[in-house]
């Protein structure tokens, strides 16, 4: 079984980059264009890990984490925040909401895969 990643990012560029990197590394990749769509898709997609941007229209990354963590059964699914923001208070806020980890853009493939491995134990 491939590890399924749900990536939520409003940037087409980042989505494409993630798709390329993740699919090459053997992950299954599903994406959503903003927070609202990501949360809406979540149950259907049933991902093993979520990667979310912070600055997005409709529902931002904090909102995504809060909504996903609001449902207890989901709290085990790791949520990685992928964003250009690196301010400590932003990190704290995301973690407070229940984020598993933080990846700063621009990301390199190795770090991304490494981070995914750490939170999912994926063999990929």
């Amino acid at each position: 079984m491939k590890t399924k990643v749900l990536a939520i990012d409003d940037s087409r560029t980042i989505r494409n980059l993630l798709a390329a990197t993740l699919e090459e590394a053997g992950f299954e990749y599903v994406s959503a264009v903003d927070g609202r769509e990501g949360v809406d898709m979540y149950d259907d997609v049933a991902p093993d890990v979520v990667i979310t941007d912070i600055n997005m229209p409709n529902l931002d990354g904090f909102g995504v984490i809060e909504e996903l963590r609001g449902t207890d059964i989901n709290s085990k699914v790791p949520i990685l925040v992928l964003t250009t923001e690196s301010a400590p208070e932003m990190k704290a806020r995301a973690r407070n909401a229940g984020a598993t980890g933080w990846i700063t853009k621009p990301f390199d493939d190795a770090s991304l895969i490494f981070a995914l491995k750490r939170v999912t134990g994926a063999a990929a």
Partner: protein
Amino acid sequence: MSGSIQDTFFEECEELLEATDEGLSAIEGGDHDPEVVNAVFRAVHSIKGGAGAFGLDELVAFAHRFETVFDEVRANRMELDEPLIQLLLRSCDHLYSLVAVARDGGETDQAHHNMLIEALDKYIPEEEEDLTFEPMGLGGPMDIGAIDIPQVATEEKYQIRFHPLKDMYSTGNEPIFLFQALKDMGELTVSLDDTELPGFDSIDTEESYLAWDLVLTTTEPRSSVEAVFEFVEGLCELSIEGDGDAEADAQALAALEAAFGAAPAAEPSPPPVAEPTAMVEETPAAPFEEPAPAPAPEAVPETSGKKASAPKAETAKSEQRGPKPTLRVDLERVDRLINAVGELIINHSMLAQQIANLDVADVRDVETELEGFKNLARDIQEGVMSIRAQPVKPLFQRMARIVREASSATEKTCKLVTEGENTEVDKTVIERLADPLTHILRNAVDHGIEKPEDRIAAGKSKIGEIRLTASHRSGSVCIEVKDDGAGVNRPRVKQIAIEKGLIPENAELTDSEIDNLLFAPGFSTAKEVSNLSGRGVGMDVVKNAVTGLGGRINITSTPGKGSTFTIILPLTLAVMDGMVVSVADQTMVVPITSIVETMRGNDDMINNLGADGTLLSIRGSFVPICDVAGALGLRKEDNDQPPGVYLLVETETGQRSALAVDDIHDQRQVVIKSLDGVCGEIAGVAAATILGDGKIAMILDPESILAAAPSAAAFDTERRMSNAS
């Protein structure tokens, strides 16, 4: 792969820049709606994010400054006053150039770049001035290995004590996965420490009692080992000790121990968990004092409710939010389709002609069906054409930038007002319109709009207004550039034209003719080449570009009130209405748009002028005749036979001429087939088409025929003759 992703990035950049531009323009117009401000912020933020992924450092750094300043605005810490808005607009313009440089290569205007950075930095609060933009210490094994090659070879044994706090479990972090990541780095032994585990009756299910002692033997550097625990920093008690760690490390440990007392060695930053005064940064323990709810069985019904709503959300998604769904299609595919539809229409004509030629009594039914076929084909054609149609909005936005740049270069104050931005025009037309429009607008700022003091003296508002409008007008597109400047200085224009030998000294011209002299080749009013509109090209280049698109341009002007440039363009470049004529036994097509009138001539109407000039007399005025066959070299001079039909055409300068052809056959829509790549440029021929009978016919370009024909009387001849009459 990454090439195509980079393409996506640049495409997306265009959209994001447009969104930025649009948002800033709205803000400039007084709309300070937080959503508008947010949209601009997000757009620039996304540009930065994408640019970072491709290592476009200059773009990242600039976008980051923009974003930082804008973040202040967004957080209402900074007021959006006029100078700031102007700075942001110019910065947005600069973002466009940086993206262009990143995409197409070339040089950034460093002086301008630095000037803007300096200006933006003034708005950036001091503590945010750390503009380094690097991936955080997420360094996986690979990139660290790349830097620290010598260390890779030495094996090291780490003693790791790992005791998760209960909060770690609510963030989705799993100890086992961390151990797996460690195991990938070398040899790992794990032993569980469950000594804290209380008796079964006193256990708190939400508490974390377990700890692990790990021994890892690896060639990876210490930082890689620490990186594994990065996400759980502050969410666990952690100590990592290397056995033969470098002495420097021991020194660092000693220093840390001195600073933090008994704090665990490898945990430099976090103070004790319960410290309430702890800074938020890097001490997630403090914000985690209110733990997220732990798994509880009662919560399940809530989840199933959410599940039930999910499929609905999937389908409702598209109508719920965002713009209408769109499909990105390769332009080439659309063009293939357009071409095929063109063939279909030609095929219809051929079929119709064949049927008409059939010697059958009852062709009427067939003809009715054929008419239906024709209408359907037209519908398809229109539909396909509309795929290529795009709103002129992005073009107009670019023009706003041009006006800003031009204004600052000439020290004039101008604003561009746009109307009809949603008017749709063929993509190619939009692309090829950019240069002429740029030129017209620069010209309007440079020569049209007066200096602020002159405007005030003339009783006008200090800010010059340039109005750019697009509208549909009976099957064509009309683009208008109207300024409220000084208008054309006619005496000066006329004088220049005389100096440059464009008109004779005693020529008497109407106002409109003088105005249109601006389009004459070799005319340029700038006394010296200014750094703006005068780049060695005149308005004749603009005219050529517009006529190249099958359009026309003219100017009207009122002294003291301003000038208006009007560009009329065909909706599409793929088909046009043409008049099918015969010239020296050849079938040719003349664009309907250039024909004013057609008439059958008789000898009384023809007047000889000198050796090789003939004039056609129409209702008391004379127009020069141009024999198309002669101009194209299809008929020898001595074999001259008077042609039967005259097509009265009007050129861009308003000059009329009569094109003499042998006969007129038909008026119909023809599909334009480019001759590029088939043969070189032929004077007088614009393109070709395929007629109903399958024959190829040349599409004529009246303008260039007249230019090529020696018999086409010069401008002044016409003048003198009509004055004489």
